[in-house]
């Protein structure tokens, strides 16, 4: 009966809001006014007589994801009505896919190469959003905002093949990376939500569903909490029952929504307001042709072609823009140097400025100029770091700037010696300490030289000169 190999078994049902301009079945914009109930029309409000018309762009996006996840793409796109009464449902049924999903039998690889099976990928419409003015469990009433109603969603259902919370997080991260490459998801504003099925060996794998988890960081928190809760329940000798729980991100806990006595009955029927859409080979071929290189291919290529470390390649490939920047820079300068500067220094400066790579104005030309100077020892790394910080604020011609500000590295040994002699003279106490055995005191003298050269000397070289002068 024990069909699972791991102690913890997790399966995910992920909902992604795809980044189309208009909603799935009407022409209301998916972005714009945040004023509640302004981006609505008779279709997404479920008015009598309104009829849905399928957004072709959303279908293209969905096929892209299916292909990226190695799914079999079915030849016919049909929609069904999933019936249940809930205030966020404008029609009290959701248009979704039931019998035949768009994609089936796919997979996604985690970083360590473990393959996670994907059962299905299907399209559906987003319900409206419910606003609980004084918290979900306390509010006496809810407000409904239909701006989101009818937004296109893709649902991805994984096999229960994730072995722990970290793998679930990793899966979500890989998925988001893929979405970024496909340009079908707004990484900054788009919503990605997951419901997780979690079970542990101790309860004989009693399935417990956690709803309402947003983002990949939350998934790890929620699952860690839930796994610990289940383990301690078993340790205390309590029995676990099949149930549905909700994740409260603020409190960091899961709480019981309902006991699952029976499977919900949604009374699915076809939505005959929407005709069958044929997914032709021509269409999938065209989409295949336009598919970008995905993270996995990039990593392989970076390691093989550019000979950089796999770890660096993974970090670079995790973000499409970063990977593309690296590729362009690596064409012109030493790839190892390029990798180091793109993944460490650029990311550091971006994080410091709280900016995303697509928000800054510099392009590969600036980085190439900068790194060529570093590569040829024309400027020190120290200077280069400061220049990069300035570049992120506002781009400029690096070569001209270095010339104008006289930032070239001091490489003339006699000139460096001159500065070193001065520094020794000015810091007799430190010199004395060094001579009496305190190695660290030398740093003070080196610092003084660095100050004199405004960082244009390399500390290693200065260190050597001072040591030889004090012999």
């Amino acid at each position, binding site marked *: 009966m024990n069909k699972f190999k791991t102690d913890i078994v997790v399966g995910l049902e992920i909902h992604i809001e795809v980044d189309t301009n208009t909603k799935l079945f009407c022409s209301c914009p998916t972005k714009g006014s945040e004023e509640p109930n302004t981006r609505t029309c*008779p279709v997404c*409000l*479920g*008015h*009598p*007589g*309104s*009829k*849905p*018309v*399928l957004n072709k762009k959303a279908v293209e996006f969905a096929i892209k994801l299916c292909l990226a996840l190695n799914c079999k793409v079915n030849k016919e796109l049909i929609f069904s*009505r999933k*019936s249940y*009464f*809930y*205030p966020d449902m*404008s*029609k*009290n*049924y959701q248009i979704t896919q039931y019998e035949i999903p768009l994609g089936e039998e796919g997979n996604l690889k985690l970083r360590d190469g473990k393959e996670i099976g994907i059962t299905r990928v299907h399209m559906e419409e987003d319900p409206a959003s419910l606003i609980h003015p004084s918290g979900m469990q306390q509010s006496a*009433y809810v407000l*409904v905002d239909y701006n989101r109603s009818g937004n296109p969603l893709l649902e991805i259902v994984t096999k229960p093949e994730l072995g722990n919370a970290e793998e679930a997080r990793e899966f979500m991260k890989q998925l988001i990376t893929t979405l970024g490459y496909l340009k079908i998801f707004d990484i900054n504003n788009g919503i990605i939500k997951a419901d997780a099925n979690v079970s542990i060996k101790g309860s004989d794998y009693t399935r417990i569903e956690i709803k309402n988890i947003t983002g990949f960081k939350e998934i790890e928190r929620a699952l860690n909490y839930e796994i610990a809760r289940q383990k301690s329940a078993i340790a205390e000798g309590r029995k676990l029952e099949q149930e549905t729980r909700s994740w409260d991100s603020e409190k960091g806990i899961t709480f019981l929504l309902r006991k699952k006595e029976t*499977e919900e*009955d949604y*009374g*699915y*029927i*076809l*939505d*005959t*307001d*929407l*005709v069958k859409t044929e997914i032709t080979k021509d269409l999938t071929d065209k989409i295949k042709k336009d598919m970008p290189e995905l993270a996995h291919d990039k990593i392989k290529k970076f390691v093989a072609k550019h000979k950089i470390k796999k770890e660096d390649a993974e970090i670079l490939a995790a973000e499409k823009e970063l990977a593309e920047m690296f590729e362009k820079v690596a064409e012109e300068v030493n790839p190892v140097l390029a990798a180091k500067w793109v993944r460490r220094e650029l990311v550091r400066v971006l994080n410091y400025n709280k900016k995303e790579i697509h928000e800054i104005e510099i392009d590969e030309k600036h980085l190439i100029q900068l790194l060529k100077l570093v590569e040829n020892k024309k400027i020190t790394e120290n200077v280069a770091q400061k220049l990069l910080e300035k570049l992120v604020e506002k781009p400029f011609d690096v070569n001209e700037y270095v010339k104008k500000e006289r930032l070239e590295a001091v490489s003339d040994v006699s000139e460096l010696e001159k500065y070193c002699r001065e520094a020794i003279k000015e810091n007799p106490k430190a010199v004395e300490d060094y001579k009496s055995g305190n190695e660290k005191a030398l740093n003070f003298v080196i610092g003084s030289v660095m100050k004199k050269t405004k960082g244009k000397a390399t500390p290693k070289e200065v260190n050597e000169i001072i040591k030889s002068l004090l012999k």
Partner: protein
Amino acid sequence: MRTQDFIQKIKSNEIDIVEHTHKAIEECKKLNKEYNYFNAISEELAIKQANDIKKQLKQDKNSLKNKKLLGVAVSAKDAICVKGIESTAGSRILKGYKPLFDATVIKKAVEQGAIIIGKTAQDEFGFGSFNVNVGLGFEIPKNPFDKTRACGGSSGGAAGITQKASFPHIALGESTGGSIAAPASFCGVFGLTPTYGRVSRHGLIDYGNSLDKIGTLGKNAYDAALLLEAIAGFDNNESTTINEPINNYTDSINKKRNNIRIGVIKETFRDIDGKVEKNARNGIEKLKENGAKIEEVSLSLPVKYGLAAYYILATSEASTNLAKYCGMRYGMSEELKGNFNEYFSKVRSEHLGTEVKRRIILGTFARMSGYRDAYYIKAAKVRAKIIQEYKRLFKKYDALVSPTMPILPPKFSEIEKLSPLQNYMMDIMTVSPNLAGLPHLNVPVGFEEKLPVGMMLTADHLEEGKLLQIGSLFDEE
């Protein structure tokens, strides 16, 4: 006056359109007091449209010369949305609901110069064969030939006003399982249900999405053809519309055609009122006199299983379509009390009629897990077989003939005695072409006890032209 002559007189200013429309509205009001044909009379809208036409006639007469419906009064079944005019599909739950948009058929008719005079009475959400299942607080329309009898349903008001109006008028009706043919038969008018997808359903309040068809009712085949010509065609707002060219249906009227092949469906003459049979046979005789080749055919599967398959599919779809009426956003509401389940249950319990509740329960049952395969899925398979059987016959025949209704227009007192199943049995002739999405036309073939009898012609998909051509043999002129 024939509609085509009337339109000429409007174009040549022999008739003042505004004056005419005022008179037409007054007549509707008067008739309504006696017969209950309207749920709403759109006087203000009609007069405005008439004034617009009058102004345009003065300014640029030429721009109106190709308008197919210039000045013609058109009524719309209540389920067809008219912007700003209360549209309830005959249900109290939609009381007060004024659509934000015009149905495509309204938009198209108005573009051709039609004047929208009001929303006609119907069974609540189209759920009935006699138009006695009206919503709570609505009046039952009365047969134009005998006020103690039913108009037929569900487009009862449409058929009644078509028979009664003394002014040129054509009605927009809607059929899911026979809701145009049945009342047309009982009221003695021509009722045309086109091919599924020929006319846009955008703006039609749904009963069963895979079955609903907007059609036309007129005093003669020409009128029915004229309005169809204006409203048919592909619609970007409605995915199931067929992207095929529209024929000039009026050109088919009274056009000679030789070698018409007619199949008489023998099963439909079993167990029917003898007076209905006699008149239907007379109709067939008339076809023969006009040179048609008549043969008896069997259509056993549709007659045997059509009704069951229809009621399963239609109620399944209806039960999802009606879920949206929950007292939020539009229509009737109640005091906000209790949780959402309690709230919407109260709204629906209070404001939906008995037949509506019955069909919601039937439809919800038929699609429940555990029963879905036995009912919903099986019905869908039966439907596919029924279409095949029809298609086989249309290789040999131009049209099939049957009586439209098995009985004469019944008295209200007789209807009260019918069980729900006996009620559903009334649709035995009409459900199958509806299930198959085939165009069909009721033609009045005679009178019996001063009550009209109708005969139904069914043709292959998109053969409305053929249907109207054959049907025009029954025009009185």
